[in-house]
C-alpha cells in the first residue's frame, strides 16, 4: 500500500494551477485534502505521474456572506464549514450534513471542493449542493465558468469539470422566508458512507398551516451512480397545503414516491438495491417530517444527531 512514483507540484495561484493542468494533461491529478485520493493512490487503484497540490493556491479558502448567497472557497475544510455561524444561519442544510461526513479527523483535512469534484454518489456534500441548487465555480485557461449543481454530477465519480479545469468555489442561496431543511442518512457504522441518504429543502408561501409549499427539493444519495433529485415526488408535493403534507401517512407516501423512479440503485456487501430503497423511503419520510416541522417554526428542523446517524 505504497503509491507509485509521482512528481509533486505545489503552485501558488489558481491561474498557475490550470496552466499546469493543461500542460501536464491526463497524467496530472489535483490533490486537496487527499481523503479519497490518498487511499486510491496507496492501493494503486489509479496511478498519476503528477500530483498538483492545492495547499498553496491563494484564494481558495474562505466563507463569504454575499447577502442572499453564501460563497465557500473550494479549499475550505469540512470542519471549517461545520463550525461556521454564517453557514449555520444561511445554509443550515450544509451545517447539518457536515457531522455525517466520515470522522472529525477526515473533516479536518477534507474540503468541499474535493468532495464535490470527487463526486462520490453516497457522499453528503454533493447531495446537499444538488438539493440546494448550488452553483459550482471553476477556472480553466479559457476563463471562469459557473455550473449549476444539476448539471455538474454526470456519472460515477464523474463531473462536468474539463481535464484542465479547477473547481474554485461554490455558491449557495441563503435560506429565506418560512423554510425547512433536513438531512438523514443510514450507514453501517457512524462515519461510513451512507447506505442511503436523503436531504430535503422546502419553502412555504403564506402563514400558519394553511401555507402552501412553494418550493420543494428532495435530494438522494447512495441510491444511484450520482446524487439524485426525486423530481416527480417534488412536483407532486409542490403547491400543496402544508397541513396536508405534514401527516405521517403523507410523509410515507412522499418517501415511497421519491424511490419510484430510481433505476440504478447499487447493490453491494452492505445491502441489495431493494433494501436501499426501503431505507431510502424511510429516510425521505423522516427528513420530510423534520423539514416541515422546521418550516412551520415548531421545532428546530433536523439537526441530525450523531447517535441517530449510525443506527
Amino acid at each position, binding site marked *: *500500500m*505504497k*503509491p*507509485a*512514483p509521482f512528481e509533486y507540484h505545489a503552485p501558488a495561484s489558481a491561474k498557475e494551477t490550470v496552466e499546469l493542468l493543461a500542460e501536464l494533461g491526463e497524467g496530472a491529478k489535483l490533490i486537496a485534502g487527499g481523503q479519497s485520493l490518498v*487511499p486510491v493512490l496507496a*492501493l*494503486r487503484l489509479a496511478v498519476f505521474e503528477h500530483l498538483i497540490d492545492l495547499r498553496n493556491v491563494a484564494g481558495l479558502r474562505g466563507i463569504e456572506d454575499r447577502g442572499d448567497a453564501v460563497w465557500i472557497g473550494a479549499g475550505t475544510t469540512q470542519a471549517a464549514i461545520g463550525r461556521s455561524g454564517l453557514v449555520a444561519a444561511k445554509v443550515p442544510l450544509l451545517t447539518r450534513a457536515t457531522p455525517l461526513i466520515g470522522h472529525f479527523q477526515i473533516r479536518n483535512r477534507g474540503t468541499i471542493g474535493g468532495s464535490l469534484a470527487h463526486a462520490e454518489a453516497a457522499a453528503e456534500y454533493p447531495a446537499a449542493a444538488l438539493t440546494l441548487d448550488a452553483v459550482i465555480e471553476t477556472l480553466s485557461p479559457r476563463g471562469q465558468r459557473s455550473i449549476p449543481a444539476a448539471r455538474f454530477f454526470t456519472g460515477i465519480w464523474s463531473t462536468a469539470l474539463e481535464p484542465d479545469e479547477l473547481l474554485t468555489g461554490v455558491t449557495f442561496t441563503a435560506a429565506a422566508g418560512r423554510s425547512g431543511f433536513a438531512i438523514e442518512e*443510514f450507514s*453501517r*457504522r*457512524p*462515519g*461510513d*458512507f451512507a*447506505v442511503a441518504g436523503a436531504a430535503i429543502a422546502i419553502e412555504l408561501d403564506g402563514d400558519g398551516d394553511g401555507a402552501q409549499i412553494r418550493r420543494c427539493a428532495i435530494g438522494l444519495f447512495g441510491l444511484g451512480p450520482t446524487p439524485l433529485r426525486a423530481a416527480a415526488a417534488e412536483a407532486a408535493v409542490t403547491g400543496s397545503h402544508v397541513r396536508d403534507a405534514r401527516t405521517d401517512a403523507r410523509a410515507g407516501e412522499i418517501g415511497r414516491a421519491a424511490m419510484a423512479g430510481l433505476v440504478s440503485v447499487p447493490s453491494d*456487501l*452492505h*445491502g*441489495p438495491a431493494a*433494501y436501499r430503497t*426501503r*431505507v431510502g423511503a*424511510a429516510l425521505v419520510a423522516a427528513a420530510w417530517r423534520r423539514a416541515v416541522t422546521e418550516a412551520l417554526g415548531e421545532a428546530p428542523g433536523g439537526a441530525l444527531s450523531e*447517535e441517530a446517524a*449510525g*443506527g
Partner: protein
Amino acid sequence: MTTVGQAAARYAGSRVRRVEDARLLAGAGTFVDDVTRPGMLHACFVRSPHPRATILGIDAAAALALPGVHAVFTAADLNGDVREAWYTGIGKDVPDTPRPPLAEGEARFAGDPVALVVADSRYLAEDAAELVDVDYDPLPAVADYATAAASQALVHEGYPGNLAGRLGGAPAETVADAFAAAAHVVTETIWQQAYAAVPMETRGLVAEWSAASGELSVWAATQAPHEVRMFSARLLGLPEHRVRVIARDVGGGFGLKVAPMREDMCVLLAARRLPAAVKWIEDRQENLMAAGQARHEHGTARIALDDRGTILAATLDHVQDVGAYPTPWPVGTGAFVGMNFPGPYRVARGTFSHASMFSSTVGRCAYRGPWAFETLAREVVLDIAARRAGTDPAELRRRNLLGVGDMPFTNPNGVTYDHMASLETLERALAIVGYDAFRSEQAAARAAGRHLGIGLSCYAEPTAGAFGYYATEGATIRIEPSGKVNVYVAGGSTGNSLETTVVQLAADALGADIADVATVQGDTAVTPFGAGTGGSRSGPMTAGAVGETAAILRAKLTALAAHQLEAAEADIELAHSRAGVRGDPDAGLSYGELADIAYFQPHRLPPGMTAGLEASGRYTAGSRQLWATATHACICEVDVTTGAVRLLRYVVGEDCGHMINPSVVEGQIAGGVVQGIGGALLEELAYDGDGNPVATTFMDYLLPTAADVPLIEYGHVEVSPGPGPGGYKGVGEGGAIGAPPAVVNAVADALAPFGVTITRLPLSPASIVALLEEAGA
C-alpha cells in the same frame, strides 16, 4: 525493563496499573516495523489475483532491471530449501495439510504468494512487484466450502472431495433412543460467516542472516518467540542455539501470530540468500486477503428436551472451511467443537461429527477461541428451543447449567469439567442486568412500538491446556547485586499485560516492593523456553513458573538472612524488599544488603550456600486444562425499518478463578466481547461466488468502533478457584466465544413477536430486514 511505582501489601488481586503503558501511550513501543538494521532490505509479495490458476511461467526480468531491486524469488528458488516445516504444538506426525512457502505450479486463492520481491524500499519493492509478469491460466475455483465435497475441482490433488480431515464421536444411532423418547427435539443448522483476527499490527518480521557466524536473528510479530526459533531452525536446518528471536512489543495476535506462516517461511528462506537483513511488513490489504480467516463454518445442532425442559441429549454435525492453506492443522480443533458442544450443561447423552473442507479461499488460522462455534450453535439453538417450548431462556439455562456442586462432571463426549461455576455466573449476570425488570421494560417498549431484546449465552472454556510443549513454563529470576529484581520469562505478550502480571506475581512471591521488580520477555537469547501466549495459558502458567522459581530464592534469602541476623529461619519475614526478624523491628537486611553479601562477600555465606541470587525453575501443569466459564447477557434494540441493531447493555458474569489483576481480566474480556460483537453484526471476510475477496479494505471489512459497543459490565464470580497456581485460570478467549450468541439471541428475542428464526450470521441490517420480510412483518 519496566518498573512500577506503586506499593501494596499484596499486589496480586489488585488493579495494579500496567507497566507497559508508559512506553506504549507515549508512542515509544518497539514493534517489528520500528526495527532497523544496517543496509536493511524490504520485501513485497507478488500475489495471485485469481482464486485458482495454473502458473504457466514467471518473468521477473523487468522487475530485476529496476534500480534498487535486489532479488525476485519464486517457488523454484525457495521451496526446495525447506528442511522441515512442522509446528511444535501440533507435532511432526499429524497428517498436516500442505503449506509450501510460495505457490508452486498452481495458485490456490486470490492472494496466494507467487513471488517475493526484495528491494531497497517497500515503495520500490511494490513498483517491482507490478513488473513481475506471471502467466496465469485461470481454473474454476472451489469458492464455497459447503459445496466443496461435490465440486469437480480440487483445491489439492491429494485430497479427494476437498476433504482435509474428518473426526467424530460415536455414531448418531447410539443416541437415537434419547431423541425418540424426548418431548421436544429441536434441530437447526447454524451458519457463521468468515471473519478474522485483524490485529492492529499486521504480520511482519525482520530476518538477518550472518553467514560468517552462522547466526540467524529474527525480529518478529509473534505470540511465541521460542516457537519461531524452533520452527526457523528446523526450516533452515540450523542448530537451534544459533537462532535468536526477539519480540518486544506486538500489536495484537489473537491466534494469528501463534505460528510462523507461509510468508514468514519465505522471508526466512530468502534471508539466507541476501547480504543484509530483510524486512516484511504485511499491509492491511494483504492482511485482509492473505493472513487467514476463521469462524467460517456451519453445524446442525440437535437438542432433545423432556417436558420439564431438561436437556436429554445434544449432538452436533459440524463442517468448517479451512481455505486453501490452513495454519496450523485445523482438524483437531474442529473435532473439539463437537466434543465440547454439550458445554456447561448437565447433558447425559450426545455425540458429534466434524469435517474440515478445503476451498479456494484464504487459509483458516487460529482465532481467539478457535472452537467457539460450539457455543454459538448450542446457545442459539437453546434459545430457539426455549421459544418453541414457551420456556423462558434464562429458566431453561438455570434448569440445566452445571454449578460448583456438580463438579467434576464428564460430558457424553468424554470431556471432564472441573472447578467451574457456570450456574453461579448465570445468576450473577441476571442479577446485574436486572433480567426480570427488563422483561417488564420490554413489554412496555413493545406496546410503544420499540423492539428490545435480551440474549444470554453460557460457555465452558478450556484454558491453559497442558499437552505437549504447552505443559510447562519456565522463569529465571535474578536479584541483581543492587537488590533490584529481574524476572525472565518467555513472554509473547501481544497486549495481554504479561509484563504487569509477572511483576505483580514476582513481587508477591519474593516479598519485594513492586517498584523493585522488572521483567525481560520476548528474547529467546535470554529468557527460558516457553510456549508463548495462546490457549489462554499465560496467566496460570506464568504464575506457576514465577512461583516455582521465587520459592527457590525465598528459601535462599531466608537462609542467608537468618545466618546474618543470627535468627531462626522460621522467624525471618520477607516483605518490602527486606528480610526482617519477627518480633524485632530493628533487625533486618534489605535485599540490596543481602545481594551485596551474596555476590561480593562469599565468605559471609552460610556453609554450603552458593554465591549469587539467581534461580531458574520450571512449572509443570498438574491438570490437563483449567476450566473457566461465563454467562454473557446482552440487551439490544432493533429498528425494524432499517434492520439496525443498537446494543444497549452488555454484562459478563464470569469465573476465571482468582484474578491476578481485575483490570487485566476485564481488558481481556472487553477485547474479546468487542470482537464477538463484530462477528455477530459487522465483520465479514466476504468472497463473491467466483472466489474473489470483496472485503479487502476497512471500507468493506467493518470492525466495531467505540460507537458500536456499549459499556461492558462485569460480575466476577470467584467461588471456584482453579486447581492450578494461585487458583488462577485463563481468561483470554472467553469474551470472543460468548459474545456472538449473546448478540444473536438478543436480536432474536427482540424480533420474537414477528416469528423470526435467526440461523445465519452476520446480522447485517439488510439481513434482518430480509428475515422480517420473509416472516411477513
